[in-house]
């Protein structure tokens, strides 16, 4: 049978419709489509996809199970290495990981690995929930700081081995960036809640409203009887550009904007948490977070949304599918331009005009690409005299974050690099005995799956350390 050269299309909501709702955009494969897509896998010997995956999911094995129609078997294979399959199937940048190195991809489009993973996870979740029983306790206690992808993965791996795991979360809901950051239309919160419940079924305790570094310190966790601590405290404080006008009313960090909309549900009717709706919005930055913010603004009723990014489409770091989806929905990309100032409204005749001090435009300068910098990407250089103004009512800064200082400041002997990221060895061990770390708290802003990978590595190190004790 000839191989279908193309991946089976992912069914999605019509762009014109979805631009005005918060329901999930990608709808997932039907069973027949999943079976047909699984047929495309060559089940090749060297399995490049497995090493392309940060948590080394046994990809060909699970796809063979899908091919046989044994979806539960496929799920069991994925969950051997991944604690959050329904999440990864949705938010992983597969095109730069497993699918990038797929053997089929040499001649044709690679296998839709992410789409199959999502299908398998969703199929499993639709079955009568098979409640996992907590494994036999091994008597060791481990504390996890942060309930984002790194923390949940580390917790899951350790709980399966019989550790008594307690996860401390600063916010009122568990899930970290999966809850406050990634919007409903890309990752429904019910899916995150289900994954968290799965961990609770394994015996993991989740304590919300606990800010480690304030409510309790790392040292106090040891005093409480925990034998190891994993820090997955996440990305931290938003960065700004340090240009004039960033404190005007209507300038948001992407963290604030997305937290208001996602965690605080400002997108729903009659919410208690306010957010600016409608008008024209500029989002500065080109990552996944920028795409999420831009598409959220659109759904909140913005009449026009611009993405302002200083390099070209080629360097845009967001996941390809998100960029495509954003374009289909009508978001305008202003590439090769960089903000130099945010301009505010000022009524000279009326100092009490409520519009005073609010955003009226963002001034940008055009850029061209020069020599490659240390990241290998060509450095954008400003073109003198090319400034222009975009009339907008809100600006969302999505240019990255710097690590939260709370844990560093309250944990003696915990070393950080010059950017404030916690320094760890290959196994995730920090400069403090029995304190491990991973995810954005170590690397700075990165992906969900790399954080999960780090959580996994640390779980293995913690297991090794405590079983030798």
């Amino acid at each position, binding site marked *: 049978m000839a191989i279908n050269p193309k991946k089976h299309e992912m069914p999605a909501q019509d762009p014109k419709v979805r631009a005005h709702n918060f329901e999930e955009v990608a709808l997932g494969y039907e069973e027949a489509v999943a079976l047909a897509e699984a047929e495309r896998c060559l089940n090749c010997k060297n399995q490049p996809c497995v090493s392309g995956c940060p948590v080394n999911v046994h990809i060909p094995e699970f796809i063979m199970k899908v091919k046989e129609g044994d979806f539960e078997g496929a799920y069991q294979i994925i969950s051997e290495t991944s604690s959050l399959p329904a999440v990864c199937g949705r938010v992983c940048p597969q095109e730069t990981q497993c699918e990038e190195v797929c053997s089929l991809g040499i001649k044709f489009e690679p296998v839709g690995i992410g789409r199959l993973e999502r299908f398998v996870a969703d199929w499993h979740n639709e079955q009568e929930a098979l409640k996992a029983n907590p494994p036999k306790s091994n008597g060791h206690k481990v504390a996890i700081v942060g309930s984002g992808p790194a923390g949940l993965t580390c917790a899951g791996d350790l709980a399966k081995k019989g550790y008594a795991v307690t996860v401390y979360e*600063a*916010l*009122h809901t568990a899930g970290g960036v999966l809850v*406050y950051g990634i919007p409903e239309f890309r990752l429904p919160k019910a899916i995150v809640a289900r994954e968290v419940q799965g961990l609770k079924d394994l015996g993991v305790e989740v304590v*919300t*409203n*606990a*800010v480690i570094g*304030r*409510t*309790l310190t790392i040292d106090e966790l040891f005093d409480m009887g925990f034998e190891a601590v994993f820090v997955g405290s*996440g*990305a*931290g*404080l*938003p960065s*700004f550009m*340090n240009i004039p006008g*960033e*404190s*005007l*009313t*209507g300038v*948001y*960090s992407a*963290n*604030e904007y997305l*937290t*208001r909309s996602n965690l*605080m*549900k400002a997108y729903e009717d*009659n*919410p*208690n*948490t*306010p957010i600016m709706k409608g008008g024209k919005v500029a989002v500065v930055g080109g990552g996944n977070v920028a795409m999420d913010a831009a598409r959220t603004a659109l759904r909140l009723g913005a009449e026009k949304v611009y993405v302002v990014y200083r390099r070209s489409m080629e360097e845009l770091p967001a996941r390809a599918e998100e960029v495509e989806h954003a374009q289909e929905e009508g978001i305008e990309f202003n590439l090769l331009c960089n903000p130099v100032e945010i301009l505010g409204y000022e009524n000279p005749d009326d100092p009490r005009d*409520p519009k*005073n*001090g609010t955003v009226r435009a963002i001034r940008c300068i055009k850029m061209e690409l020069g020599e490659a910098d240390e990241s290998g990407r060509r450095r954008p250089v400003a073109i003198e005299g090319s400034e222009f103004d975009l009339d907008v009512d809100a600006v969302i800064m999505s240019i990255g974050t710097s690590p*939260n*200082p*709370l844990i560093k400041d309250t944990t003696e002997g915990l070393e950080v690099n010059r950017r404030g990221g916690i320094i760890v060895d290959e196994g995730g061990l920090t400069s403090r005995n029995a304190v491990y770390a991973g995810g954005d708290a170590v690397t700075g802003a990165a992906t969900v799956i790399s954080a999960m990978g780090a959580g996994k590595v640390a779980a293995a190190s913690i297991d090794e350390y405590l079983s030798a004790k």
Partner: protein
Amino acid sequence: MYKIVRRRPLKPMVTMVDVEAPLVAAKAKAGQFIILRVDEEGERIPLTVAGTNVEEGTVRIIFQVVGATTEALNHKMEGDYLQDFVGPLGKPTETEGIKKVCIVGGGVGCAIALPVAQEFHRIGADVTSIIGFRSEDLVILEEEFDACSNNLVVMTDDGSYKRQGNVTIPLKEMLEAGEKFDMIITIGPIVMMKFVTLTAKEFDTPVTVSMSPIMVDGTGMCGCCRLTLHTEEGSVMKFACVDGPDFNGYEVDFDEAIARGRTYAEFEKKAHDHVCNMFKAADELKAGTNA
């Protein structure tokens, strides 16, 4: 869930509650704040800690009804539960090396100023307190301030109680008379703190202001609480939730902070009216069934 173990109305619109939160009670120091949510759909609001009882495991907060959330909070009674209560957040007020201090509180800000005054009193500093209110029916905590202050001045804007005028009047008189404070600490409406700072500056007296900007998470994630400090090295952005809430008054860009504080004024007014109407309708319904 966090139980309200004690509730006392101080004034018609000002209420004190003690909330069971042992971890927070064990840690909280003067100048720190908490974030709470009244119910599952509620917003997160920051409120400064007004006191703690470590043995009982309770944290005291005093709030004035100003918006939808404080309105809803004011309808919670003893024995009721709050959905979320997290803290202590922010840095405690710096007390080291301060032997003579002037605490200037305004309105419900006095509830926050009180534990600061008490802390200085506890460590043996000489405490002058100037507390100001709009009118007599808003005066709170006078006795408590009296107990921890070497010198207490109470002001009302309309003169309905004690001396008339704003808090900068007695402050300026003291400084003119040659009083030397190691530090002036001011907590209250931002405009008041701005003028306290200007007064202090005239006499070269250092001043600490306690900022209470809009917050969402309060743990150093959203950046909503940012403010600008104009330092000797230039202007820098700081986050009140992790770098503050106390800042050097000389450096704070008050006008910017005032403008940012107004961001959701319109929304909040509407939300408050909505909540008030809901409670009113519920009361009428109850009255109807009882009759």
